[in-house]
């Protein structure tokens, strides 16, 4: 399946969640014979169960299709998948950089969404040819004309050029393939130049080591070649080259313009980061490809095993997951309340949830997750500046000169009737209004400058619920800004639950504290004694609740010698407590820790 450059087309699909990207990808595979019917489980591009359930793609992947076009020639089409969530925008930018064109899939009823828009802008920055596809035209609510106008008004594309399709029914697939061949330019890049290959994804395979997905921009890759990672610096020998059709096929060469994978006995994805450039160690390129950036975690939380003896297993599981995920960072942390665990950094909230779920699902770990926090910058009175990821690292109030927190530019696209509630929500979250722009007669794009901490705290759920699910959200990092922040500690029966400490804006401290202690009051079961729950800033208690003592808990019926039943009742009772954390003499259920994260969500 080697082709001359002029017969190669590299493209990706940009779409909002649920707008039909995966289905369309399936159809393209089917049409070109890469998939016969549903032989491979549906939606092959979404590898993991988790991805399938959430309907999003976490890891990118590339598939090579052979397509005989109407001009009678056979083309090599490389479909590069992109993740659809804001947390992964850097990965998106790298896969866009590997393409010359993109299919922009828009739901014929829903129209363009904020995330899509953000990705389209990224694609335009990379000079990609964009082929708009209006999908789901079979639905009764489809309004392709409206979407055409949106394409013109918002992005400036020719709405008339959009392909009308129904990926579900297979309509429009042939036209899309023709348009890929016609509208997207073949890749450039001299095959004889020194090698420069862009890594747009990687994953760890226990047999082959790290598999790097690459787009060869210049030169060529061959088995046996000594390669060097231009940013990370490591040198390796290529053991295998291949492509996915979607079945894995080994090849002897990947030339400029082609997409495929490289295995080189690399042990850790951190040596093979997305965005890095692979070059020939013997004949290195003078410059790496532009755009490399080490992924920086934005959101942190503590992960603790419910059962303290599982700490080792948790560490192993994180080691394993990080083999595949260069953006996951973690370091051991000790909490007085929760024992030994890890402070983990994630690209965003979704990334955090995915890792948590994978740890629980794939590794069978029961975890307690602390409230997520961002990285705060603290300047001490002695001039020292440092970053803290954990409220417990905050120095005493007297030593703090100033505190800064990360701000983002949040943009949301929504039907105009929800402008009021959304602005109210953003305002309530300390947002600073930036812009409101009509992108069609009914829809607007609102932008606010907001503290990231407010966004990771239940913002998306609130946004969804105040717009009946119509609003989409995207955000871009702006930088640090000074804010009046305080640490609120939570005390249960006089013991500080360090895991529940939060850093919060002074004006919000009372409201947040009240919610937390109320939620704890409802979630901590009654004990044989009264339990007082307090929220405090330093020594000052700002909210208080109590759980009255359990009065009576004794099974005193005569059971005619049925001790087994009695024992099982007690065992069940105890089992319930096992899933709790014991702090002092109080058993605190996991939900209590989780609740701090979701307060306001109900």
């Amino acid at each position: 399946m080697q082709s001359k450059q002029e017969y190669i087309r590299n493209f990706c699909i940009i779409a909002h969640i649920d707008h039909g990207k995966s289905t369309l990808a399936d159809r393209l595979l089917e049409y070109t014979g890469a998939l016969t019917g549903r032989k491979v489980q549906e939606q092959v591009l979404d590898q993991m169960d988790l991805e399938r359930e959430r309907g999003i793609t976490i890891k990118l992947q590339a598939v090579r299709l052979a397509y005989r076009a109407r001009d009678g020639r056979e083309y090599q089409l490389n479909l590069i998948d992109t993740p659809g969530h804001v947390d992964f925008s850097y990965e998106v930018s790298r896969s866009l950089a590997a393409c010359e064109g993109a299919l922009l899939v828009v739901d014929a009823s829903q129209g363009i969404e904020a995330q899509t828009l953000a990705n389209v802008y990224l694609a335009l920055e990379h000079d990609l040819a964009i082929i708009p596809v209006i999908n789901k035209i079979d639905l009764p609510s489809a309004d392709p004309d409206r979407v055409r106008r949106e394409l013109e008004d918002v992005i400036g594309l020719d709405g008339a050029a959009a392909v009308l399709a129904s990926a579900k029914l297979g309509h429009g697939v042939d036209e899309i393939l023709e348009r890929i061949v016609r509208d997207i330019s073949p890749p450039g890049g001299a095959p004889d130049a020194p090698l420069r290959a862009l890594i747009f994804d990687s994953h760890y395979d226990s047999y082959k080591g790290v598999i790097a997905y690459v787009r060869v921009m210049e030169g060529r890759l061959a088995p046996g070649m000594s390669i060097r990672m231009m940013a990370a610096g490591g040198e390796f020998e290529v053991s295998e080259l291949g492509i996915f059709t979607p079945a894995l096929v080994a090849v002897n060469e990947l030339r400029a313009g082609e997409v495929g994978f490289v295995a080189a006995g690399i042990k850790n994805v951190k040596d093979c980061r997305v965005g890095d450039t692979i070059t020939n160690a013997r004949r290195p390129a003078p410059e790496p490809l532009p755009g490399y950036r080490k992924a920086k975690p934005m959101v942190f939380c503590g992960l603790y095993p419910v059962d303290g003896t599982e700490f080792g297993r948790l560490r192993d599981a994180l080691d394993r997951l990080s083999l595949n995920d260069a953006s996951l960072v973690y370091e051991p942390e000790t909490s007085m309340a929760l024992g030994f665990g890890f402070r983990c950094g994630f690209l965003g909230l979704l990334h955090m949830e995915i890792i948590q779920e994978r740890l629980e699902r794939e590794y069978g770990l029961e975890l307690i997750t602390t409230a997520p926090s961002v990285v705060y910058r603290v300047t001490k009175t002695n001039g020292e500046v440092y970053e803290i990821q954990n409220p417990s690292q905050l120095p005493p109030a007297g030593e703090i000169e100033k505190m800064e927190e990360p701000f983002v530019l949040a943009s949301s696209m929504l039907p105009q009737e929800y402008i009021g509630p959304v602005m109210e929500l953003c305002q309530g979250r300390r947002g600073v209004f930036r812009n409101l722009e009509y992108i069609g007669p009914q829809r607007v794009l609102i932008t606010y400058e907001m503290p990231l901490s407010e966004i990771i705290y239940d913002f998306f759920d609130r946004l969804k619920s105040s717009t009946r699910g119509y609003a989409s959200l995207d955000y871009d990092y702006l930088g640090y800004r000074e804010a009046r922040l305080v640490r609120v500690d939570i005390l249960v029966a006089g013991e500080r639950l360090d895991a529940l400490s939060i850093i919060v804006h002074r004006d919000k401290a009372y409201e947040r504290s009240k919610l937390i202690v109320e939620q704890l009051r409802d979630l901590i079961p009654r004990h044989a004694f009264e339990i007082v729950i307090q929220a405090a800033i330093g020594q000052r208690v700002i909210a208080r609740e109590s759980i009255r003592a359990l009065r009576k808990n004794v099974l005193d019926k005569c059971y005619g010698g049925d001790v087994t039943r009695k024992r099982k009742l007690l065992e069940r009772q105890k089992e319930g407590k096992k899933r709790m954390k014991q702090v002092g003499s109080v058993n605190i259920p996991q939900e209590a820790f989780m609740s701090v994260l979701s307060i306001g969500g109900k």
Partner: protein
Amino acid sequence: MEIGIYPDDRGPTAAGYARNKMKVGVYLHVPFCRRKCAYCDFVSYPAAAADMDGYVRAVKTEIARRGAAAGAPPMAASLYVGGGTPTVLPVEALVEILDAIRRSFHWPPGLEATVEANPETVHRSDLERLRRSGINRISIGMQAAQDALLAVLGRGHRLDDVREAVRLARRAGFESLNLDLISGIPGQTTDDWRRTLEAALVLEPEHIAAYSLEITPGTALYGRVERGEVVPAPEDRVLEMFHATREVLTCAGYEQYEIANFARPGHACRHNLIYWRNEPYLGFGPAAHSCWQGWRWANERDPATYAAHLDAGGLPVAESEKMDLRTEMAETMFLGLRLRRGVERERFRRRFGRDLDTVYGVEIARLQDQGLLEERDGCLRLTERGLPVANVVFEEFL
């Protein structure tokens, strides 16, 4: 005041258990009732439709087969005939079964032998017959002194029937008599409960078992609660009644020797002590439970299935489990702590060959810190505060 139940009995040693030289409590389950009480989740079937002959034949077979399996007839430590309602069986049938027990077990003179009875099912001649055949203790289900509350429980008797039953039992020569009482009945006030206790005291029983009502899924009462027809007693009131029980009965000269059991000196129920000390017992009849030679088992619940196993030459065991040391120690703790005296350290050491603190030091220290356990006379026991929340303490030992 301390009740010397087994003044000379220091409890078995581990070796004693292994050699199976233990005395054994004998329990007979009669799974028939005239009617099912609204709160009852014990195994019982309508007496009118029951194959009583089949039951008697099967139970005698079970007793004989177990006795034969034990080799030499074991020494009975107590006998308890419960149900159901044992007194719905024709008295001669009951006597026949008692005879079968005598053939397979040593029945020493003065053995505590209890029969349960509902007030409406006792007849003078039957009681005398039972008394003559060695039954010397009777347990009467009085439950409440208010007929309206008895109706909520679905009982088939009134307070007057209780008085009459007690009179008949005394006349028949029962010198040890227990009254079962239930607190926490929907609609019951603490005053109602105090009047129940006083009405019971007037009858001068040697023993009073005062339980809090448990409304278990599957019972008629549970259904009524679910449908909102009756409201369960609030927790605070149940606790108030629990304290009232202790106050009233203690003042009247009864000792609380177990969470729900009160006795005059010398009248603690030996059979129940066997359960609470986690010592061996053999149960006969459908749904009866046994604990013997390191095993626990439960018989088939359905009388026909039960009989079929025996007819086929086997034993009617439905479920069994082998006790491991850990479980046996845990059970010894949560059963023993029900006793007011608590768990005797020396008895524990003799039985398991290790000290209580070696096995449960951490748990004991924590519970003592919380004021739920205390040390007294070489025993570990619940404190006053620990009594009503005993389950919280018990589970620590599992």
